[in-house]
């Protein structure tokens, strides 16, 4: 058969009494002869109601046969049953051994089969026959022990196939169903517990992300509070010190005015020259004042805010990283990208005495326009007094005309001094009048530094909140989906259990 294309040969025998109830006898190939034939036998086993295992009395139940029987038993058994009832073992060729040995052979066979749990004790599944002798006696219509034993076997097999095997099949099916139901129930329980644990995990995870969002929200507000408090402290301090600081500028400019020189001869030109020297002095001294103001008053607070921001940034990143590790996400990278521009600024903004940034320069830059505007006003005022200067010139000329030439040089020196004083006093007077404007310029500039750090903090915190909020939503949606699919799974399993139980009940009745 192994090399043949024929799968099976059906031989019908209408006169065979044994087959009258639709029983089919299949003579399967022996086992361990050829792999293909063994496969055919195993296939047959799957749809067989009863197996008749024929062995020889001369060499009966060898280890190989015992192994085979054990294998059959495993194939035929349902998981919940320890024994099979549809395995019949027939020991043939009994006529070939001495009748004195029969008893011994039977006892040994029974023991082997029951010890190996192949045929349980008390179950009539082991027969000792001589097919040849039985046939002979049947043909001769002769009663004999061989014939009797053979008939016993046949009637027992017939009884099993016609009545017991049906019950057996139902019983087996029910037991099998029971085991399937148990398996499904285990799967159901595991699905349910997995759903619950996922719920727990999801709740813990949600709680953690929410708590972090809350923390960042709190930090953001605290940062706003700190910026606002520091700014108002700094502005108060600047205002408090302003008059004194401002006077220092004036004093220094006055001192430096003594060193003003000019090569001009004409009073108008001299005045213009002194005016521009005054402008230079004022600008320089004012620059020095703003450096002092920002360095002394603002920078320490900006440094604290910068340090806090840096510290909180580290804290946020650490948290995101821990979430990444747990969820295998890329929050940290996304966060770092979202604030990519900021950390650098943060570095120089917060570094003490950083070379790229200083609050002083920021103030001076913004002041320049304002200062020149103010100074322009001063210059305009100077030009307003030009009528007076013109009158002074006429007076001087008149005097020059009246006086002698020898006195002219001494007078000019004196007049030079007068011009210097005039320019200085007028300039400082205007500078004094511009005090409020300059103070508000300084304030605006200081405020700007605080606004800037506030803006950066908001960006850093806001980005974290956005990222966490979207993570929360994504996770919540994922959890919902997974919960839904698991619930579906559970309901399918529950339905299956119901259907199986119904089948089981039908079988029972």
């Amino acid at each position: 058969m192994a090399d043949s294309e024929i799968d099976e040969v059906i031989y019908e025998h209408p006169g065979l009494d044994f087959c009258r109830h639709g029983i089919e006898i299949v003579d399967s190939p022996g086992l361990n002869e050829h792999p293909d034939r063994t496969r055919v036998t195993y296939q047959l086993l799957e749809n067989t109601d009863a197996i008749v295992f024929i062995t020889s009395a001369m060499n009966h139940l060898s280890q190989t046969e015992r192994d085979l029987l054990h294998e059959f038993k495993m194939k035929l058994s349902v998981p919940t049953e320890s024994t099979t009832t549809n395995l019949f073992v027939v020991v043939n060729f009994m006529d070939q051994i001495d009748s004195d040995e029969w008893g011994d052979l039977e006892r040994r066979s029974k023991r082997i089969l029951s010890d190996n749990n192949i045929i349980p004790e008390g179950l009539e599944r082991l027969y000792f026959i001589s097919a040849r002798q039985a046939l002979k006696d049947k043909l001769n219509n002769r009663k004999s022990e061989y014939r009797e034993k053979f008939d016993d076997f046949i009637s027992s097999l017939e009884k099993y196939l016609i009545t017991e095997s049906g019950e057996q099949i139902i019983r087996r099916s029910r037991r099998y169903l029971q085991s399937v139901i148990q398996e499904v129930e285990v799967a159901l329980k595991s699905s349910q517990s997995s759903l619950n644990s996922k719920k727990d995990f999801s709740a813990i995870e949600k709680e953690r992300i929410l708590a972090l969002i809350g923390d960042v929200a709190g930090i953001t507000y605290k940062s706003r509070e700190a910026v606002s408090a520091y700014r108002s402290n700094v502005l108060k301090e600047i205002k408090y010190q302003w008059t004194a600081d401002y006077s220092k500028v004036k004093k220094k400019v006055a001192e430096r005015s003594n060193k003003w020189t000019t090569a001009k001869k004409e009073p108008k030109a001299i005045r213009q020259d002194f005016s521009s020297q005054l402008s230079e002095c004022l600008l320089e001294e004012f620059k020095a004042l703003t450096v002092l103001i920002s360095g002394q008053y603002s920078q320490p607070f900006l440094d604290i805010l910068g340090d806090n921001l840096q510290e909180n940034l580290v804290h946020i990143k650490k948290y995101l990283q821990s979430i990444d590790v747990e969820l295998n996400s890329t929050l940290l990278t996304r966060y770092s990208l979202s604030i990519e521009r900021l950390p650098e600024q943060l570095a120089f903004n917060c570094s003490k005495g950083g070379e790229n940034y200083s609050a002083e320069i920021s103030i001076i830059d913004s002041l320049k326009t304002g200062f020149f505007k103010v100074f322009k006003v001063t210059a305009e005022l100077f030009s307003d007094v030009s009528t007076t200067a013109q009158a002074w010139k006429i007076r001087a000329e008149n005097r020059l005309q009246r006086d002698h030439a020898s006195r002219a040089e001494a007078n000019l020196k004196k007049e030079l001094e007068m011009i210097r004083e005039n320019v200085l006093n007028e300039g400082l007077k205007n500078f004094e009048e511009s005090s409020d404007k300059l103070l508000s310029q300084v304030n605006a500039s200081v405020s700007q530094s605080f606004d800037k750090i506030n803006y950066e903090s908001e960006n850093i915190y806001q980005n974290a909140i956005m990222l966490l909020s979207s993570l929360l939503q994504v996770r919540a949606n994922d959890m919902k989906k997974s919960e839904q699919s698991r619930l579906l799974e559970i309901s399918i399993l529950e339905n299956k259990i119901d259907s199986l139980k119904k089948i089981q009940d039908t079988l029972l009745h």
Partner: protein
Amino acid sequence: MIDYVYSPAIEEKLRSGIYKEVVSKKDGTSLGHVRDAATGQFVANSDAIGITNSSGIPLQPFVTPLSAVSLSESNTLPILQSLSGSIGTLQATMSVIGVGVAVTGVISAVNLWQTVKLRREVAELRGEMRDGFLDLRQLLSTQNRDVIEHIDRVASDVEFAHHRTILIRAHGQFNHAVRRVKSTVSMQDVNQRNAEITSIRNTMSESLADYNNAQLITQVSAPGYLRRRECAWAIEQAIALTYYLQSESQVAAEYLTDLCERIKKDILSAIQLITTEEELEFLFAEIKRIYDHDLPLLNHWSSQMQWISEQTPQDQKMLRASQHSLIAVSDQDLIQLGSDEMQSYRLLQGRSHFAAIRDQLQLMMRNDLRDQYIRNIVQEAKKQSLDGINFENLADASLETITNLYYLFYKSKPT
């Protein structure tokens, strides 16, 4: 919600179903009584050995005596005496807090932690009365000199002297009422006994009227206000007990339920008075303790009273006469707990801020306010496309998260 812890033997029988715990119809919580599942009889010697709040933390209330859970007639007097002792210490701390705005650097000397310590010392009879008021100077003598000097300053304050007079009278009256209870409980004539208890209750009510005196609670700081109200709550608990003594458990139950609402209102009023970080710290620890320990216990007490009123007269009689061992808690444990609350305030300070922490306390007392905050947050989050900050997710959020988010969205400029 609170849970009882029984001896291992009882716990085992409860687990195996031989015994059953009696639970409240209202909320299903255990009422601290054990019945035999088969006979329905109460089990003798089944007193709980511990009691925890819903977070599993051993219950350690600040104003309400823990022994209130093991109520029986014989335990009533010790409970009343404990309430009286508490009032004495609580009002003595007012001599540090004073009238008007609380002085910086002083009120921490009588915060939750310190007050529990003081109460222990008073219980050990280490305190001395001075003009009807417990003299704290002696007990605080090892402390900061500034505090002692401050007590002297408060003592010379005319306004406080006026308060002090009212407080001494009120406490005196209450003590007198408690002393009368001692002789009353043994009275055999029920009518006479009930009449006497009504009279005692009237005296307690007069004392309560003093504590409720508007003069006493105007112009006081948040800590001062809270301490005055705590004294009033203690007296109200005593009044509830008088109803129990008259077998009016149903009335006692209703009285206690109402008291819980009054406590919440009082706390909200106290929160409104907070003006400084120091006051916030003081109130945070105390309100958290009251919220986590006193209020659950009072609610539970009310459920117990309600349940007693539903029992057969025979069972009621048996329950009233039972010899419960009082569940005691040492002030040492309370001190530990107090420091835990301070610790949690410190942690909160790092992540939150004055306004948000103050609002958290309000939200503890008002669930509707929590919902309102969430509505506002979600509205703003929607505008900013912060999809994760939605109703579903915020349902599980802590009060800290809610108030922090609220301030982030709604208060762009710090107050």
